[in-house]
């Protein structure tokens, strides 16, 4: 009884903090939803809605100035036999093949070197990150000068070394690798992510490997790479997506030339939408790109199961 009386006596008092907690919880939920709403509404209005609209427009014949006409999958059929679509797809894939592994390699090597220095790490981290801060258009203009076959920095270096000079972005065969080189220059972002990952690799693992007689290369291959493989995966996926969406270099530097050598997919899409005003066709192109990027991401993620290791993961 007494216990019950005590309970009864304590009841209203105990319920008050509980009620307060509940009120606070509800209030927090409301505020949380309020703050999240900006992002959610933004996503619906500026991403999902345009995507749905673009999917519908992709099924129409719509040249700006005319009334859209539903044509089913005709745009996709036309794209399948469009030589410039295939050309732009080849060009973009070639670029991705050069730029993504190249960027990963340079960023990884740089991060590994930075990981070894202590005093000047901050300085070099800033230096390597600076190109990321240069606006894409400004960087494209700077690189146009660097690539100039007559008075550019790169050919001056090649000439000084008595090596044959190149046409860089002005040559059909060298244009895409040149732009890939320019993109790799902005490797600072990846480097910082790699550096953060490298600093998180346990010293114990290196010491154990050293005790087992592993040389630095083996330690790198058997300890470092597996340990930071989730970060490699992240950089690979985001790098691949960015590579398939490259636009500024073609727009500012080459306008898709010479002879469509740099007709990147998104630049071709842009040209179709805003120069030729074919919104239906361009929307269909956009959806093909979306599907391609999704497929590539799925393939990378599926294959990653064999080479990405997460701490505490059981196999």
């Amino acid at each position, binding site marked *: 009884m007494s216990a019950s009386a005590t309970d009864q006596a304590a009841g209203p008092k105990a319920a008050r903090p509980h009620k307060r907690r509940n009120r606070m919880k509800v209030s927090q939920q409301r505020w949380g939803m309020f703050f999240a709403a900006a992002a959610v509404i933004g996503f619906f209005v500026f991403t999902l809605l345009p995507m749905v609209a673009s999917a519908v427009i992709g099924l129409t014949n719509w040249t700006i100035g*005319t009334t859209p006409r539903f044509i089913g999958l005709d745009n996709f059929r036309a794209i399948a036999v469009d030589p410039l679509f295939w050309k732009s797809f080849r060009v973009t894939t070639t670029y991705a093949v050069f730029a993504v592994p190249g960027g990963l390699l340079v960023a990884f090597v740089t991060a590994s070197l930075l990981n070894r220095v202590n005093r000047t790490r901050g300085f070099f981290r800033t230096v390597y990150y600076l190109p990321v801060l240069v606006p894409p258009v400004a960087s494209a203009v700077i690189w146009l000068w660097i690539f100039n076959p007559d008075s550019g920095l790169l050919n001056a270096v090649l000439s000084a070394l008595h090596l044959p000079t190149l*046409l860089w972005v002005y*040559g059909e065969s060298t244009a895409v690798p040149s732009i890939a080189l320019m993109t790799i220059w902005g490797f600072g972002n990846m480097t910082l992510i790699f550096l953060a990952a490298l600093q998180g690799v346990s010293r114990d693992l290196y010491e154990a490997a050293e005790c087992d007689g592993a040389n630095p290369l083996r330690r790198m291959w058997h300890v470092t790479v597996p340990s930071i493989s989730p970060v490699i995966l992240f950089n690979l996926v985001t790098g691949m997506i960015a590579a398939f969406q490259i636009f500024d270099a073609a727009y500012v530097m080459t306008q898709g030339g010479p*002879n469509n050598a740099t007709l990147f997919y998104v630049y071709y899409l842009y*040209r179709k939408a*805003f*120069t030729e*005003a074919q919104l239906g066709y361009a929307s269909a192109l956009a959806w093909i790109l979306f599907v391609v990027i999704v497929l590539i991401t799925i393939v990378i993620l599926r294959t990653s199961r064999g080479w990405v290791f997460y701490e505490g993961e059981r196999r």
Partner: protein
Amino acid sequence: MLSGCSNFTNKASSGGSSGGGTFTFTSWGTGAEKEAVTAVVNSFCSSKSLKGVSQNIPYDSYETKLNTLLAASNAPDAGYLTEAMAMRLGEQGKVASILGEKGFENFLPQTIHHWANDKAVSQTAVEVECLWFDQDATEKAGVTPPATTDGAWNWDAMIQAADKLTVDDNGRHPSESGFDAAKTKRYGIAGLTGLPTLVALLKSKGIDMFDDAGTKTNLDDPAAIAVIQDVADLIFEHRVSPTPAQATTYGGSTALLLASQRVAMAIDGQWALLDLSQSKLKYNVGVLPRYDKPLTTLLGGANGIFISTPYKDVALELLVQLADPSQVPLYSNGLWMPMDRKYYTDETAMSKWLKEGVHPSNYKTAVVAPTLSNSVVMPAYKIKNFSIVSTTLTNGLTPVFSEKRSDVTQYVTKLADQVKQQMQGAYPDIVS
């Protein structure tokens, strides 16, 4: 610069009021052009009791911006249009025809472009390709660029003159032994690789760049390939001309190119005169080299009135006023050439736009006269889908002018085939 506008404002005021709305005119162009067009639009609109909005859009993004406005059903009342866009919008019924409208009757027929037999737009102004030169350099080398079409250089004469003007660091010319091409101090001539110049050179040999039906390019004609080979040879064989990439390094405009003293003569549009007249360079102008008939290319963007405007009459009047050299300073400062025939034939009318200190001594014979009698119209209006076709051609020809090739015939033939796939026919426009 804007003094002419006050006169124009007074005239417009007498035209009556259109009542309180907003009139939007879009244009590209920087500096003097932007200022002058804005001033004219504003003063004209206020005289019509309208609020004038002059929207200046960079040329590179002009089509994008305008297409976006159109897609959002938010077209301006009137504005500049690129050639291809003017014809496409005309065909779609989005742009009003100026045929039969007051004030356009005496425009040169080359400046009126028909998207249908009875419907057309007019150009913003006339432009032609010219041979600009550094007079100090030519005089020193003993070269006199021809001031009349009668005296136009044939190809060999042009090479000889360019050779005299081209020198390396040791003062040797390309035709002399020991000339070091890697140390070329000054090139004789630049600017032959652009499509407008190629159009004139091809037509000089009797070849149209495209067939009349707009189904193919004639670039794969052996005679046309020979012209392209000739231009490439100027760079790699005769070594009297820089590659386009080199020329860009020397100067982003003809005025800068000549002022850099790395090039003595440069072919460019008449619009280059605006910058040249503001430079310290002693410049003059000559006629383009020829094969058979001496020719220049006439070109220029369009002015369009959007069908959605409630102020069509106001817009028509504005376009006529923009074409009047006594109202707009852009003619006397060298950027534009007029469209009305009288400004080419009547001395009094000519004096309204030809200005001493801007238009050089050869201007009348080397620019004004050929515009009337020795010009071929750039097929930018005639050929459907021209913006894409011209991009493919320009990009496609770049490798020919960037490095020495032994396969120019095969390469150009392949390019012509690529262009053919993009061609979508022709408008009933005047080409020559």
